[in-house]
Each structure stands twice: as C-alpha cells, then as structure tokens.
C-alpha cells in the first residue's frame, strides 16, 4: 500500500513551521507510529530530498500512556492506535495546536494554569490518597475543545479529574472549597458544551457527564451563597 503524508515541521520552539511530504510503502494495518519509524530509517521526501528525521513522542504503543497525541487530517488522535489505511490522502499530520511546539510533532504541555487550578483544589483537599481515574493524560480532549487555548478555560481533562475526585466523597468543607475554585474564571462556566471532547477521547470517558455534574454542584453552591 502506497500512501502520501504531509507533515507539518518546525525546527525549534521559536522557529517557523513548514510542510514536507513523504510517500511511504506500508504493510496492511500500519499505524501512524510505524510511518514515523519508517521515515526515521529513510528520511527522504517525495521530491527525493534528504531531510532530518521527523521528531515525535511515544512510549507504550498500546494506547495507554497518552504520549503520542497529534492531529491527523484535522482530528486529534493517538498515533499508536491510528491505522492509516483508510485515511484520505494526503494524510495531513500536525502537532497539537493548543500547545507549544518543541520540535515537529513534539509539544510541551506547560499546563501552568491547570496545575494552579488543580493545586488550588489540592490545597483544599487532601488529594494524596485519591483513586486515579482511567484518564491517560493524552490531551486529545483539550485539543478538540474549541474553548481550550482561546480563553483561560482549564479544559475537559482537568474538570473530569476534579469531578472524579469530588465523587470519591470529600468532607463537606473541602468539597465546598473545591467547588468554589471551579466558579472562578476558566472554570466550568467556560465550557460552551461543544461536546467535542467526549467524541475524541480514546478511553471513551464520560467527560461531558462529569462537566455537567460539576455545573450542577456549582449551581447549588451559587444558590446557597445567594441565601446565606
């Protein structure tokens, strides 16, 4: 099977991006990771020009570590579980656009805002002993969200994790301060209900249900404060 790939490249965090095309001969069932591995062995473009291998991130290749998220034909996916066979050509591969590019398809998830948000909640609640969620931290939902990156919105992944933490039953006092932090700018109210997140999540997590749960909790809290 022959397939044409158009890959967005960038040499450094400050650099300009540019496109390069690679034509690959692939076995049936090949994933995007295998395409990138092949380019590494023979980094030659469709115009027979020798170039630097494409840089990307990966770890488990089993869709459970969440390292290899990138955008393929406009949709955020995990490269390791994306079979390229049926994708329309040229297959356009780009880094996640809501994050800073380190190089080519490698992005840095700075997440200072998310950390601050979670830490606000953490200081309120003893999050040391919390059952982890099945979220693999791949950021695919963050990329798909039209709000994330355009505002201070903390993003679906973080809200999901906070909702699951709350559901584990915190003391009322602690739960209240976690919910209050969600009422700040960038919190649940910034979700505009586009529902993209839940459609792209590789783990098929009920992200929108979690956000709806938080919205309800926030509304109840606001109501309480009104009549205090």
């Amino acid at each position: 099977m022959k397939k044409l790939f158009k890959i967005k490249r960038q040499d450094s965090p400050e650099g300009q991006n540019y496109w390069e095309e690679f034509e690959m001969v692939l076995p049936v069932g090949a994933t995007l990771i295998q395409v990138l591995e092949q380019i590494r062995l023979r980094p030659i473009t469709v115009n027979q020009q020798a170039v630097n291998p494409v840089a990307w991130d990966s770890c488990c290749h089993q869709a459970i570590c969440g390292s290899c998220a990138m955008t393929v034909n406009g949709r955020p996916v995990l490269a390791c579980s994306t079979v390229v066979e049926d994708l329309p050509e040229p297959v356009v591969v780009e880094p996640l656009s809501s994050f800073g590019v380190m190089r080519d398809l490698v992005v840095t998830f700075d997440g200072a805002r998310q950390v601050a948000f979670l830490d606000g909640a953490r200081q309120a609640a003893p999050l040391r002993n919390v059952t982890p969620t099945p979220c693999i931290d791949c950021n695919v939902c963050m990329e798909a969200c039209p709000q994330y990156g355009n505002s201070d919105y903390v993003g679906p992944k973080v809200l999901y994790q906070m909702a699951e933490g709350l559901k584990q039953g915190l003391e009322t006092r602690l739960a209240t301060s976690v919910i209050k932090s969600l009422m700040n700018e960038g919190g649940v109210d910034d979700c505009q209900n586009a529902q993209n997140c839940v459609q792209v999540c590789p783990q098929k997590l009920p992200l929108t249900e979690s956000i709806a749960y938080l919205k309800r909790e926030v509304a109840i809290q606001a109501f309480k404060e009104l009549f205090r």
Partner: protein
Amino acid sequence: MSPQPHIIVVGAGISGMMSALTLLEEGVNVTLLSFSKKGKSDGLSTRFGFSASGKEDEILAHQQETLSAGEFLVNTTFVSEMVKNAFSLGQKLQKWGVPFACEEDGSFQHFLGEGQKQSRTLHAGLTTGFYITKTLEARLKAYEADGLLKHDEEWEFLSLIKNSHGRACGLVAQSRKNFEIKSFAFDAAIFCTGGIGGLFQTTTQPAHACGVAVSRLWQEGALLANPEFIQWHPFCLEHAGQYIGMGGLARKENARFFVTRAGKPFYLFEELYPAYKNSLPSLVALRTLKKYFKTEDLGCQADFSSARKDFFKEGGALLGSLNSGRPFFVKPAVTYWPGGLWVDQTMQTSLAGVFAAGECQYQGHGANALEDNILLSSLFSGVKAAKGAAAYIAAEGVSDSISQKIQNDEEARQRNIQDEFLNRSGRENPWALFSDLKQDLSDGLGLVRDLRKLQTTQSKVLELKEKCDQVFIPDKNIHANDSYLMARAIKDMVLLGQGLIAASIARKESRGWHYRSDFPRGDDDHFMKISRVVYDEKQGPVVGYEDVGDWQNKLSVA
C-alpha cells in the same frame, strides 16, 4: 549540624517512584531524574497482577513457587522478605488509592496468578500497573507541590562522577529537550531504569527500554547478574508491531487458550495440566506449545468469551476493539528481564554509592520470573533500595562535596564527546543499526539457543560494534533530537548485547528461560549458580559464577 543527605533516583517508573516516596516519607531530600515525561513509563501497560497473601501457609507457598520457578538463582533473603511484605505493601497501596478489586466484606479479592494453584493475586481494573503508576505519580506530585521533591524530566544518564575513594557522588546527564549537559551531585543514587525488551523485535515493552543506563554503569565497573535470562510471555496480542501481554487478564477473566486440532478447538493446557489449567507457568505453556507445534511460531487462540460484560468497555482503545466475542490469535513476545545489575543485600551495586531497584536488578526472580511477582518485586525492591541507600549514608556519612572542578571537568568531557559525534563523517544511520541489533539479538537469544546460533550472533554483533564508530548524524538540531541520543546510545546497547551473548554461551545447560538445544538438560553441579559478568575494556565481557549456597534447604526456609 550535619548536612542533609541528598539522594538521586534515576528513572521514574514504578520502582523509581516507590523509592522516592519511601525516602520522602523518611524525610530525605530526593531528586527524581527521568528519561520520559512525568508519569509515562512501562508500568502503565503492565497487566499482570500483584501477588500478595496475608495467610501464613500461603506466604510459604508463594515463596516456594518463586524460588522453584527461578530455579534458585535468586537472593533467597530478598525473596523471603518480599513475600512476607507483599500483603502489607498491597494494603499500603490500597490506602494510597490503588483500586484493587475487593470482596463484599472489603477484603481483597484474590485471583489466580501465574503458576498458582491457590488464588492470591490482586488486580486493579484491567491494568494493575496503570493504577499503581498513577497513584504513585499523584502522591509524588503532592510532594513536588510542597517543594520537597524535585522531578527533572527528560534527562538521559551519561556517566558517573566518583571521588578519590572511588565512591560515586555525582552523575552527568543530558537533557532530551535541548541537549544541555549537566552534573548532579548526590550522596547516593538509586537506579531504576527498567528492562531491555526494546532490544528485541517482538516485545511488550516500550521501544526505549534498551538498558542504556545499565550498560553505562556496567562499563563503569558494575557487575551484571544472570543477564542471559530473557523472559517471554506466550499470550501476546499483536498490534502493528507492538505486543500486548494478555496473560494477566486471561487469568483474571478466566479466559481459555486453545489450538485447533482436526478442525476443532483443543484446550491443551486444561487437558494436560488440570491442576493449573490456563494459569500454568508461562515457561511450561511455551514448552508445551513447542512440543505441540514443533515450529518457531508458537501462537494459539485466546477465547475471552467468559470475560465479564464490562471487560471490553473498560479495556480502552485497543482492547475495546476485540469486542466481537470471537477468539483472537496470541503469540510470544519478550516481556521481562529477570537478570540485571548485581546488587548486595542492601541493593547496592558493585559501585560504592550506587543502588539499583526494579527490573534493572536481578535479585527477586532468577532463571524465570513469575509474572505476578513482577510488580511486587519492583515495588518491594524500590522500598528496600531506598532504605539501603539511607542506611549507607547514615553509616558512611554524606559524601565529601566533590569539587566543582571535577564536576565541570566531567561535563566538559561529555560536551567534547558530543561535539565529536556531531562532527563525524560516517555513513551509518543509527536507527538502521538499532534495527539490525534487534534482529541479531532476536535470532541469537530467542527461545531456543545453540552454540552455532550464538556464535553467529556474536560475530554479527562485533561487526555492528565497528559500524557504531561510523555512525553519522545529519541532524544537528539541539531540540528533541532522539536520533543523536540513539547514535550515542547504540554502542552501549551493542556492548550490553555482547554481555548477554557471552553469558549465554558460557551457560552450557538449560535452565529457566535459557534453553540450549545442544545442552537440553540442567546441570546443577556446574551451573546452579548465579552468573556474574564483568566488563573488561580489552577482553569485553568476562563471565564468572557465584554460588547460591545450600539450595536444597532453601525450599524449607520460611
């Protein structure tokens, strides 16, 4: 006031995180240095269970099974402590947040583990390793936010710095993000750098699990123990070149394995091993399949129709796709390295001040690891190495601060090596060499070995070693340049491969995962011994042996 001891943990997988947490609980300053980004490690995809029982007779059975599976090439004290501490470790993890499956009364639900006749294995969801990793990671983040832990991610270990007495008191590492070369001083270091599955073509481990740090320590004088044993897992699902171990899940969900005979399914393990059925030891399963097929392709069919309804729903992106209910094909892949760095009773390697834990050390398993002991030994060795390192500093004192000059000199030496690499005019693509190495090691160190194969592989690996000096790096970019890191690391991988082959050639018998068709029987008189491999710059690997002592009595040791 004496200065605060400072320990560096290299590697942030399950054992590295456990080491760091143990030290933090005891109030020791820790820096965690990891090759991968935070929370991205091999443990995430570990689907084995966690063997732990609180009952006296079961602890004894657990110990006996562990020792006999490993054919005694273990540190008996380590195994004995490990099985005794397993239950309390499980309780601790549960308290921290690992969602182990429980009975209605709140006690642990026990599943059948590999090679177990009695159920004593814990599982959390479908991927126990995932939940353990995430739980430890969340706990570390809390320490980090409180300023008690520093976690530097995406650094590759390059070399050690020793003081005039030969005690290691610093290391030099290179940032994967931007090529920065930097030294880190310490009073003791714990290496938790994982396995070597990445050196083989078919593996359940990530591609970067190639033993580079282990090889570099070995070349600096650390000993390797039992490196010839490479563990396979018979029931792996192939997904585009990556292998997913299904055995742990199969045992948990009572799945069945069969081969087709005369057009009908034949459940061979249930027929041949009624005491174990499908939870039989992997080694026995593969030998049985081999006897049955007499070919290299030792696959069989996995039937998960007995699995709970939620099984496929919980299985995430890849396992969810198996939801048709039809049996699927599974075959063997490398899953673990029971050998590794030699360590003493305190988990110290043969280098003063350097400790090791997790898969990169040899102690808990011997010739064959029981799969449900793997998470256990990673966690327990992490705790033990942390305690060992803290005790070492208490006894030996903090290291006399190495002069800034020594640190600067080593940094400068590493920068020179880097410049030399970048200016090379060779023609070998490092990724092509890596691919050749995987092919060669898979051929020579497969499930069935013999002298001819091993010697062929040995000479191929020697050729590769020469080619490593001809490696060319067209890509001079300082950002996220994995090609450069591979170009530097490939020779270390090749040397380690040489060590594995030398130990394999020297062990003229069959034991555990080391099967020689030219010596198909075990030879207890000569080889009931732990192999120890020294690196000699002139001669290459030199193989010696360590007695395991009075092994007959080991079965009765409680």
